[in-house]
């Protein structure tokens, strides 16, 4: 079964959640992108449903960050269409970006400002009044257990705390779609688990659609949707169990190896 077939099957599945049949949180339609002669993305095609956790799995250089840059409008779309809850990111970027929260792979916090100041700045960029922003900042800082550090400089935080703060910041304007690009890179095991738990809670409790880019198998759970990206091509898309079954594998690791023809996530070919 091809990636598109798996996707169609997942959409028509009788056990699909009600959310899956609603307007997609994110819709990527035939997106291609090149850097000069090098093709970074080739006809990528998938959707993320509201209240779902979709893992975008790929090796370094698979095209995950390029895709994120296109979805967030940092790059212009060369071919294809990207919609957030039906809003075309090229035609109505304001409406689309308003519904989206983003955590980029590199840290994007201002290290010399305090936690609260970083949050207030983000709120201002979304037009949230200072009074409302202060309320929301106090709320999210309490939720991520950093209320007592509100006035500290961000550079004094640990890596895990910074990531939690970035996630809290991405949620400050109450988006309905959350994009996280390799959000756990460089963190220890506990910090990674905490952040994953936190994001999964957001899906379950707030109905946020999540696109989680990763190259780590252990971050994917059986109930997740999975998109496999390799050398710019989407090789599979659908519920994790279906992707594994379609690849004739027992687990996601083996399925990934069979789909991509690589032995490990280091990208070495099978011997």
């Amino acid at each position, binding site marked *: 079964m091809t990636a598109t077939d798996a996707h169609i099957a997942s959409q028509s599945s009788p056990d699909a959640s009600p959310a899956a049949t609603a307007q997609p949180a994110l819709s990527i339609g035939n997106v291609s992108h090149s850097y000069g002669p090098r093709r970074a993305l080739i006809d990528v095609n998938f959707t993320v449903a509201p209240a779902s956790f979709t893992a975008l799995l790929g090796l370094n250089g698979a095209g995950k960050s390029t895709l994120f840059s296109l979805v967030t409008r940092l790059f212009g779309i060369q071919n294809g269409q990207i919609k957030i809850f039906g809003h075309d990111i090229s035609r109505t970027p304001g409406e689309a970006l308003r*519904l989206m929260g983003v955590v980029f792979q590199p840290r994007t916090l201002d290290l010399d400002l305090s936690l609260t100041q970083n949050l207030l700045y983000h709120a201002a960029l979304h037009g949230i009044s200072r009074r409302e922003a202060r309320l929301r900042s106090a709320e999210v800082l309490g939720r991520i257990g950093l209320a007592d550090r509100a006035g500290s400089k961000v550079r004094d935080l640990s890596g895990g705390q910074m990531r939690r703060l970035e996630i809290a910041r991405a949620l400050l304007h109450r988006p309905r779609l959350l994009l996280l690009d390799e959000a756990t890179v460089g963190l220890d095991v506990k910090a990674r688990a905490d952040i994953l738990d936190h994001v999964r809670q957001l899906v379950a409790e707030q109905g946020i659609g999540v696109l989680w880019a990763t190259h780590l198998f252990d971050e994917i759970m059986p109930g997740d949707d999975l998109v496999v990206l390799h050398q710019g091509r989407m090789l599979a898309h659908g519920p994790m169990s279906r992707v594994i079954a379609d690849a004739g594998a027992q687990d996601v690791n083996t399925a990934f190896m069979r789909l991509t023809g690589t032995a490990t996530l280091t990208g070495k070919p099978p011997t």
Partner: protein
Amino acid sequence: MSSTTVTPERSGFSVSEYIVCLNGIVWREALRFLHQRERFVSALVRPLVWLFIFAAGFRQVLGISIIPPYETYILYEVYIAPGLMAMIQLFNGMQSSLSMVYDREMGNMRTLLVSPLPRGYLLFCKLLAGTAVSLLQVYAFLLIAWFWDITPPTIGYLTVLPALVLSGLMLGALGMLISASIKQLENFAGVMNFVIFPMFFASSALYPLWRVQEGSPMLYYVCQCNPFTHAVELIRFALYGKMNWVSLAVVGGCTVVFMIGAILAYDPSRGLVRRGPGGGEA
């Protein structure tokens, strides 16, 4: 985690949202400026060195005849003060450009660029914030210069403000345009050699243009075409409560052109500069 209300869908932005955004960007720029005290000190030391040392030496060499807007003979220090005010703004504009390149490499710029408000407006807010910071520096310089007998008419401190805002916007927009075309922080040294120094020296900041014309007619025309010359003259006239219409037109026009260029350069669909995955995100 407690549940949070999801923002209802709506289109467009209200005036108050635009104002909140502007306030937020200016506030952040001011905070960063306050955290970088060395930047404030160095921004002041540079023109003061020119004023106290360079001008003191040149005072005996270079005579200034009576030229508008001055109504009598003036000391060389008095002549170069407007040029040094413009120099503060020139360096501030380039410093903002440097900080934009740094932010882009460090990732902070993404926070700004993924804001839902129109990107052109966000860049304009950033420009205004940089200009506001340059005004603080210029007025601090004027305060110190007052003790050095550079005493324009009291009303001049007020009339020069719009000129400073406009020249600050022009130089900031130029810096922004340059920042869009710089791929790496290391390339910024080139800006010093190819933009700041030629703009400053090939202008009326240090010598009246009639003096330049005597020495080199070719350089005189270069100075005439240099927008920095017109920023200096706009400030010079405004500081004495007068208006130089040609300079106003040139500075205003250049501001618009540079700003449009910067907005186009930061527009993802029409960027002037093609970027790879590691080449900055804007």
